[in-house]
């Protein structure tokens, strides 16, 4: 008995000191290691990370902020969840989400780059070229949101708190990367063969490296033109000249919106509009509708729907501060409706309430931007045009949804026009018209409608002073970026066009009608850094603020007009 017990105890000792299976059980069975994977699988998430993030950042980034800053879309109609002041007054959580998305995208890009760079486990020069171009696209968008961001010390895990670099440094770095990428690509057309071959995992070009090369060149021109004229810049003319000397992108680089997977995953306007926050949809901005409608632009019916119209009661408040503003509010609204040439009928009841009748489904009217909550009760949503169904199409209906824009042929041509007007290159008007044509083609306008527009409309031909011509080009770039608010907003900040955007050319002061917000009536020039940036890298954020100006939306970026 004694010996048996002893034996038992010794066997327990033996078992306890045995850790032979410990390494094995601590190895994940449901995950892949670097040895299992190919570089191509990483390309897609890098692309969607920059252009088609999931619902949370998509709402808080494009929809709530930059698309509205661009003037393309607006909130704040009656019964809309959102007040149109949102985003013009600082909201930490919404701003923070945009920072989180933009800053966070570096992770997948960095991992991809580390795999494919020289010496990486999946080393491949063509993938590396793609990584460099994606890095350029990413940083251009990132810095154009915020200004100074970590760049030179970024992506080094040994530097926990990287410094923030100024935009000039970042722009020059992007150009250097693009040049390197174009050299790597040379005349290659594919990324290789077998598992190396990139095809449909590349949402932009299906693995066509020459298309990537052209995209790189277009991005180089974009960077150069945006920097052009900024304080202390010394590279834009040379870079733009080089870009013009090479082949620009003549193919639309798009990210097809995912119309299949969960509506909470990779997002588009469609799934945000429909299943989630049905009360939070939005209207098309009036500056955009006006410029399309007033110039008989055939894109109007591709971008927007006519107003639903009908009869509406504008209820006069029985008391309170809004009573005194009632007449002013009604006049503002009816003047705006009539400005587009629409005939409306107005009747005033004994209690002062005005009833208006508006034609149904025939006219386009945009909603003015930055209207405040005092006028909101009169802004019936049926009085304003909504985006076309193609843009707000729900997922899983078997119908396409407007893609995300990466770089369009229209943009390349309009940039050539802009370059020519800035003394780099020539034939501004030809490029201008080609740009409009390419944009219309992308939106499915018929050839005959394009010809009619280009032939008949004065806006279709550059005229006036160079400044006016640059304004025309900028306005067309702004239109061509419809659904890509960041780029449209960047054009407006860079050029000051369209001048009709509230706050861009003069400060808004009428607080009976408009939201002045924390911006106090000026145009938003950048987004503020997220709280996360302060929490994790406070010293360097504060250093950036000391360099580029206070962390406010009104602080202009380096290249802003």
């Amino acid at each position, binding site marked *: 008995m004694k010996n048996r*017990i002893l034996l*038992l105890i010794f066997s*327990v000792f033996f078992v*306890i*000191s*045995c*850790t032979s299976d410990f390494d094995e*059980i*601590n190895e994940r*069975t449901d*995950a892949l*290691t670097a040895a299992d*994977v190919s570089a191509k*699988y*990483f390309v*897609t*998430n890098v692309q*969607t990370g920059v252009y088609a993030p999931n619902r949370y950042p998509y709402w808080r980034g494009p929809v709530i902020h930059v698309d509205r800053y661009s003037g393309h879309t607006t909130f704040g109609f*009656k*019964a809309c*969840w959102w007040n149109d002041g949102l985003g013009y007054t600082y909201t*930490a*959580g919404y701003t923070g989400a945009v920072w989180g998305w933009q800053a966070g995208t*570096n*992770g*997948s890009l960095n*991992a*991809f780059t580390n795999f494919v760079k020289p010496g990486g486990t999946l080393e491949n020069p063509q993938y590396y070229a793609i990584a460099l171009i994606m890095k350029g696209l990413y940083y251009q968008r990132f810095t154009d949101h915020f200004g100074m961001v970590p760049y030179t*010390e970024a*992506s080094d*895990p040994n530097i*926990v708190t*990287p410094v923030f670099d100024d935009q000039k440094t970042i722009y020059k770095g992007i150009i250097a990367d693009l040049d390197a990428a174009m050299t790597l690509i040379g005349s290659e057309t594919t990324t290789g063969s077998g598992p190396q071959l990139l095809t*449909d*995992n590349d*949402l932009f070009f299906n693995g066509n490296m020459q298309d990537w090369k052209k995209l790189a060149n277009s991005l180089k021109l974009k960077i150069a033109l945006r920097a052009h004229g900024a304080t202390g810049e010394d590279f834009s003319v040379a870079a733009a000249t080089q870009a013009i000397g090479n082949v620009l992108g003549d193919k639309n680089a798009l990210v097809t919106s995912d119309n299949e997977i969960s509506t909470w995953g990779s997002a588009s306007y469609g799934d945000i509009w*429909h299943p*989630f*926050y049905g*009360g939070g949809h939005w209207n098309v901005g009036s500056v955009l509708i006006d410029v399309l409608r007033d110039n008989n632009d055939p894109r109007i019916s591709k971008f927007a729907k006519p107003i639903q119209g009908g009869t509406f*009661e504008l*209820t006069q*408040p*029985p008391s*309170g*501060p*809004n009573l005194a503003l009632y007449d002013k509010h009604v006049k503002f609204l009816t003047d705006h409706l009539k400005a587009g040439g629409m005939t409306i009928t107005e009747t005033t009841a004994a209690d002062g309430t005005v009833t208006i009748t508006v034609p149904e489904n025939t006219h386009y009217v945009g909603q003015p931007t930055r209207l*405040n*909550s005092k006028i909101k*009760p009169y802004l019936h*949503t049926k009085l304003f045009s909504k985006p076309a169904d193609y843009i707000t199409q729900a997922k*899983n209906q078997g119908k396409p949804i407007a893609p995300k824009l990466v770089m369009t042929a229209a943009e390349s041509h309009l940039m050539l026009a802009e370059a020519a007007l800035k003394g780099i290159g020539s034939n501004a008007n030809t490029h201008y018209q080609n740009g409009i044509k390419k944009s219309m083609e992308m939106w499915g306008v018929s050839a005959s409608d394009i010809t009619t527009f280009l032939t008949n409309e004065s806006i279709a031909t550059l005229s006036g002073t160079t400044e006016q011509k640059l304004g025309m080009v900028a306005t067309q770039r702004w239109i061509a970026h419809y659904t890509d608010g960041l780029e449209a907003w960047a054009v407006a900040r860079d050029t000051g066009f369209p001048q009709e955007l509230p706050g861009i050319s003069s400060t808004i002061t009428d607080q009976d009608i408009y*939201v002045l917000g*924390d911006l*106090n009536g000026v145009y938003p020039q950048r987004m503020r850094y997220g*709280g996360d*940036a*302060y*929490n*994790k890298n406070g010293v360097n954020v504060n250093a950036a603020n000391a360099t580029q100006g206070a962390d406010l939306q009104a602080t202009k970026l380096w290249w802003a007009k």
Partner: protein
Amino acid sequence: MKTKFSRILTSILMVFAFGFSVQSQSISGTVTDDNGVPLPGASVIVQGTSNGVSTDFDGNYSINASMGDVLEISFVGYTTQTVSVGSSSTINVQLSADNALDEVVVTSLGISRQKKSLGYSITEVSGDQINTVKDHNIASSLVGKVPGLNITGGGSMGSGSRILIRGNNSLSGNTQALIVVDGVPINADGINSGGSVYNNSVSGGGISDINPADVESISVLKGPNSAALYGSRAGNGVILITTKKGSSESKLGITINSNVSMEDAMILPDLQNTYGQGTLAVAPATLADFTSGSWGQKMDGSNQLYYTGNQKAYSAQPDNVKNFFRTGVKSINSLSLEKGGENSSVRFSYTNNTTTGILPVSKLESHNFNVRGTSQLSDKLSIDFKATYFAQEVLGRARTGGEGVTALVYNMPRNVVTSDLKNYQKANPSSPADYAVISYNPAQSTTGNPYWMLMNDIDQEKRGRFFGFTSINYEFNDWLSGLVRVGTDITSVYTFNVRQPGHHYYSSGRMNNGTSKSGELNTDFLLTATQDITSDLNLVFNLGGNLSKRTYERLNVFGEDFKIPSKYFLNNTNNQIISETPIQTKKVNSLYAAANFAYDGFVYLDLTARNDWSSTLAADNRSIFYGSANVAVLLEDFINVDIIDMFKLRGSIANVGNDTDPYQLVQTFSVPGAGYLGLTTLSAPSTRLNPDLKPENVQSTEFGLELAMFNNKVNLDLAVYNIKTTDLIFRVPVPAATGYNFFLENVGEVTNKGVEVSLGFPVWETADFSWNSSLFYSANENKLVSLIDGIDTLVYTTTNSGNLSTQGKVGGGIGDIYGTVWSKDANGNYLVNANGRPIASNPDQLLGNAQPDWLGGITNTMTYKNWSLNVLIDGRFGGEIYSQENASLDSQGVSSRSLQYRESGVTLTGLDPNGAANAQALTGQEYWTTNAAIAENHVYDQTNIRLREIAVGYNFPDVSAIGLDGASLQIIGRNLFFFDKRMDNFDPENMLGTNLQGQGISSGSLPTTRSIGMNLTLKF
């Protein structure tokens, strides 16, 4: 280290091996106290001889004696008992305490010790204390009874509690106490739950699955010093639960207990009843004009458009929120059968808990079967086994947070009749539009209807749990015994959730079907040797080992977009996403030893050592050594003051750990369930792992004083401690520019310092009447000393708008609350914007901390003849909480507060952007909505004092005449009222979750329930 340690242990073992000597013709048995708790070290001698032995750590003894001999069993503090030896070779003895000085408590590894010999702080709670005012969750019954224990809730029925001992010792993951039942650690999955400000649900797990009716006693090992023998699981302290065994009586004992109580909302928000639904002081004129706020005109009873599209009297509905809740019924009934014999005992119990919550539909039903048996198989070999099966189903657990059902209830417009909302969907829906929710805000499809959520949203959770152990005890001789025990704990959880088509957020519907299984298998051995080294110096030496294997697996299928909207199963959905965690395993092997020296009954020294080998760490870091030393000195004999019966000083140092989860070492990539457009995609991991990860290191020092005076009637226990955790395993949130969002590293330092005092004293005593009070005070100060160079902040939870977050911040503590305040200029003037609204600061202003400064409780026990009265009053003092629901009540215009400024508006005193005095008037609506967005306005002091428990009891005398052994009845109440509370409208103890993320924020919390009922016990 490993080899050397093993060699030492082996040598020690060899020494013991030589001491083996087998005796025959012996009498053996167990010596226990009144409660059946074994008494180690009790003396058993054959009267009139020098033949005597001491009981082992399990109270077992074995002695040579002949028939007719008289055994004298004695133990300090207990009345000595004598028993004649008959034909039986087993004699079990129960000793009655003769005074409280020599209380025996259950310590680490289930070893019973005399409390006075301990060099650390431990608090024992008896089964009765948690079984009178009963809750399905034992943790709720510990609130206010144990110094140093901070328990908060936040969920509803079937939700767990957060059990924090002496503060947060870790930055991430689990900071809660380890639960050990009958010596076997139980699985803790589910105990860190909730914390979402959106749609929040707090699950149960761990202690909430233990049936209170089976509990004999609970020992709270407060912190590393008392828990050191648990090594890498001891970092957060341990709660030891000892369950009941069968009695040694040969008669069949039957106990029936019925505990039934009615529950209603203890507190509901204070709402205004003057203004109805609308905006800008106007009731909506068309359906498109509706908003959910109550910013309309005065409710004058006139006919106005109602959300249904009909005209209805625009009248206040003062009770519409109250009417939504119902009276809950909690009914916990148990039956236990027990029988003993000379050599064995068995106890069976069944407990049924059927509880309906105050939220309509919500229901909890559980069944608990428990069998416990002990048997003395031979004079040396005994066996103890237990098997418990627990099955629980929770239906309609409350969803809190900003999008939860409660938010829709609290924000109900003041003129809406609750029962009208029961029409939440068109009858016989056919087209997709028919399925849409009908809410009190018809203009917005994203406003839900609380009844829809109750009736159409299915939230079901089924838990099945098996616990069991078998332990075999062998007496080698009168000084050495050994135990081998195998314990298992298997939990499976099935969840089924449906959001039917037409739901306000998920219009095409979605569902989720998940199963998970957690297991824990513990195999232990323990050798105990008792030796008198000299006549004054006694040694008890324990040597043990443990193999712990913990597993977890999960399969979850999510489906959305129902093809045919009337039935809800996965094949009827268009999109499915599978997420799967194949079985993951963690093993920890351990060896430990403890030596308890007692010198002349006045100096006690304990030394413990443990070595763990953990599979979650790399080979080089796998082996970790932990140790502790505790000293207790009894000085009453030296002080020689008559009124002092005991004067004990104690001190302890301990070093324990806190290890990590599986798969934390090697970087991998996972394939998401849905790629993009059907493409296979891979993402980079966002956390940089560290293959050299090691366990957290927790060092704790504790000093204490115990004093007994006036014939032990006044007892004081004082403890001070200092706990320092270093090498915190922490996902350091790094700037994404590094290429990662987190680095998983060992970093930083956290300290917890605190004081615990408990004092028991008689208030009044006469022959028939006694009134005893015990009170406690505990204060803990938590400090985050360092994180990592360059980074001083860790964010736990951020509100939807980002106006507030809970953080850990260097220099501050874990659970610091940061948020926006109304901005001021350098001269202290408030700033307003051009529209006259307050300008919010950046959300970086310190507004408080989620941990209370101190906790206190007073338990009063009064008895008069057969009557008894127990009253527990407890309080939290200091600490802050942000109330999202209060902000929402204001911005929706439903709170009483929001009546202010409605008629006249307000012009705030402050400077406008031009530096001039503000002249812009705000309407009440503008003021309150802006005010609600600034975080500081809804951060409240957690301070509250409440009548936590009350029980008025009567013991029926002379029940034997009707065939009963005993009968007692108590009228019980819980959470009857607040003596004081600083937070408006809600209970500050209702946090958003049981995890760290849920601390310091309250959002859409379910009202705390007040319960009144009765507890009837019948013994046959």
